[in-house]
């Protein structure tokens, strides 16, 4: 038996919708097997992991809270990946954005007025964009591989955060704990809808919807997609691949930086040596599961957020390590990529003995 791919004449619309669902199904199956192998009831495990977080008020709120940064970062990454710019350093852009967004409440705590929060968000976006521009400029100017440079900058960003929180930005009244001072009320992102979610969530959803419209209906959206699929054709249309690289990185960095600022301002309320449970990397999975489409990314963000909450759930209820969450995230990305093959190709099983002219080549 051999697996053979037959190219479809055109993209399968049906499979484009179905493939993420099949991927989630296969991931659940694989997760069930892992639960069974480690000696736990797979059905209870899957229920606790994927369903239970949606049944209670507190866990639903926690899921929304975790989904928000994932969606915002994932939207920016989608623009990068659509245009063939492999930014995998969103985690670093998130951290640097949080630092830029925090310098007001940390260094000027007495600056408290209506402008504080908007300024913080703007600075956060600028910080993330500047950090993302480093690999972008190195790529356009020196042809340096952006995958490696953007990733290296993640490590550098975490070290800068660590240095600031343990050194110059440490809370003067904090008994030497490695944390910044607590943000004042004016610097704290308020909750909305009766405390169900922080203001970060509606902001994120608005950004995602605007981005979806831009991608689907505007010339810029067309440019992003053309340059991703055929840079040569895009060149004839007068699009500049270098300018687009700068644009995509700056946008992704700005959104990641905004997410970082909203995380420290809304959730943590101060800077800590570690401010993200890997949002920047999980958002890569979110972007692909959402098929690089902002509306899909909203849904995908919730699915991946479930894995964080579900991981905690199975740990406390069944004694399974919460590390299982990152295993499931990794498996999910694998299945998503494998299932996307179905969109472009039809899969055929061929028996080895079948008389076929050129089959001996493979």
């Amino acid at each position, binding site marked *: 038996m051999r697996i053979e791919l037959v*190219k479809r004449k055109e993209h399968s619309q049906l499979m484009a919708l179905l493939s993420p669902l099949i991927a989630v199904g296969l991931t659940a199956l694989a997760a069930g097997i892992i639960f069974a192998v480690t000696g736990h009831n797979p059905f209870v495990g899957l229920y606790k992991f994927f369903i239970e977080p949606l049944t209670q008020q507190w866990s639903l709120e926690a899921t929304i809270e975790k989904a928000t940064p994932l969606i915002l970062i994932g939207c920016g990454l989608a623009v990068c990946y659509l245009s063939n710019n492999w930014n995998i350093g969103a985690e670093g852009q998130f951290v640097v954005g949080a630092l830029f967004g925090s310098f007001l409440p940390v260094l000027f705590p007495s600056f408290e007025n209506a402008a504080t929060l908007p300024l913080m968000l703007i600075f956060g976006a600028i910080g993330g964009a500047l950090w993302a521009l480093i690999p972008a400029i190195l790529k356009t100017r020196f*042809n340096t591989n952006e995958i490696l440079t953007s990733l290296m900058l993640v490590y*550098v960003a975490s070290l800068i955060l660590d240095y600031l929180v343990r050194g110059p930005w440490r809370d003067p009244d904090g008994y030497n704990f490695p944390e910044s001072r607590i943000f004042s009320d004016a610097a704290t992102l308020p909750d909305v809808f009766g405390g169900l979610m922080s203001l970060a969530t509606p902001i994120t959803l608005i950004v995602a919807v605007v981005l979806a419209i831009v991608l689907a209906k505007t010339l810029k959206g067309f440019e992003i997609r053309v340059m991703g699929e055929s840079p040569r054709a895009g060149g004839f249309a007068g699009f500049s691949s270098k300018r687009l690289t700068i644009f995509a990185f700056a946008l992704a960095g700005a959104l990641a930086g905004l997410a970082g600022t909203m995380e420290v301002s809304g959730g943590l309320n101060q800077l800590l040596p570690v401010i993200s449970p890997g949002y920047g990397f999980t958002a890569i999975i979110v972007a692909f599961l959402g098929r690089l489409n902002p509306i899909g990314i909203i849904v995908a963000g919730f699915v991946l957020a479930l894995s964080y909450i579900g991981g905690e759930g199975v740990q406390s209820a069944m004694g399974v390590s919460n590390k299982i969450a*990152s*295993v499931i995230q990794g498996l999910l990305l*694998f299945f998503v*990529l494998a299932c996307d*093959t179905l969109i472009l190709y039809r899969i055929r099983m061929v028996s080895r003995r079948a008389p076929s002219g050129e089959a001996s080549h493979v």
Partner: protein
Amino acid sequence: MFEAVLLTVITAATPIMIAAIGELVVERSGVLNLGVEGMMIMGAVIGFAVANQTGSGSLGVVAAILAGMGMSALFGFLVLILVTNQVATGLALTILGIGFSGLIGEAFIGVPGLKLPELFIPGLSEIPFIGPVFFQQDAIVYLGFALVAAVAYVLFRTRLGLVLRAVGDNHGSAHALGYSVIRVRFAAILFGGACAGLAGAYMSLAYTPQWVENMTAGRGWIALALVVFSSWLPLRVVVGAYLFGAVSVLNLHAQAVEILDIPSQFLSSLPYLATIVVLVLISANRRLTLVNTPACLGKPFVPDR
């Protein structure tokens, strides 16, 4: 003192050198596997776990190699058979490897490890200075040098190497000549996985004989950068690995001496910053990179029928 510094340079250079030489073969065949970090960390945890359970360091090393190969087979199936995007699939491999290693390794945190024994090469290890530095090492250090030499020889002096490079430079022609592009690439990917697994075993059985979550700390990514630095030439991998080793040792020793009151975080970021600087310097030189870059690197291949 100098001898001690040199010894630490070797231990810092060995894992990235081994991982990089494996990835170099993969990329020469035209495939970009960004999952080195994931395969390496799986090698580290499986190597540690098996050595710990069986009490045998060699079994640990073998298990680590198999773990790396298993991970790479998964990658190979996706990118070669299902023709998925190589960049995204490599990232998936890294994310999965970091997740799985955390899950498997949880039971081994704080467990005392097992250090591979040093093998003294008779005669050579007696030479003053050179002997203790180069000929009183554990088996993986020697194996690393042997791997580089073997890859350099096979790649440029044998028919097998010629086929591998042909597949990486022009898969269409190689296919037309009757070579199985998929099979050659799969073999190269498995070799890369074995090397990454071995590099991981070195981390947890020799470099720091214990299991710490995320202990490879980006070395897999630095190995990928090293392949670019080497412009796909095996012997330059050694140079790059030792340069990197020197930078990270500078970091260790400077922290011990606390010179000039430099924040430790700055010193820790040096290897990453140095990698970026080196990548920029190499890639700015178009001629150098274009000559040796495998022309089909990262391009999917679907045989037409």
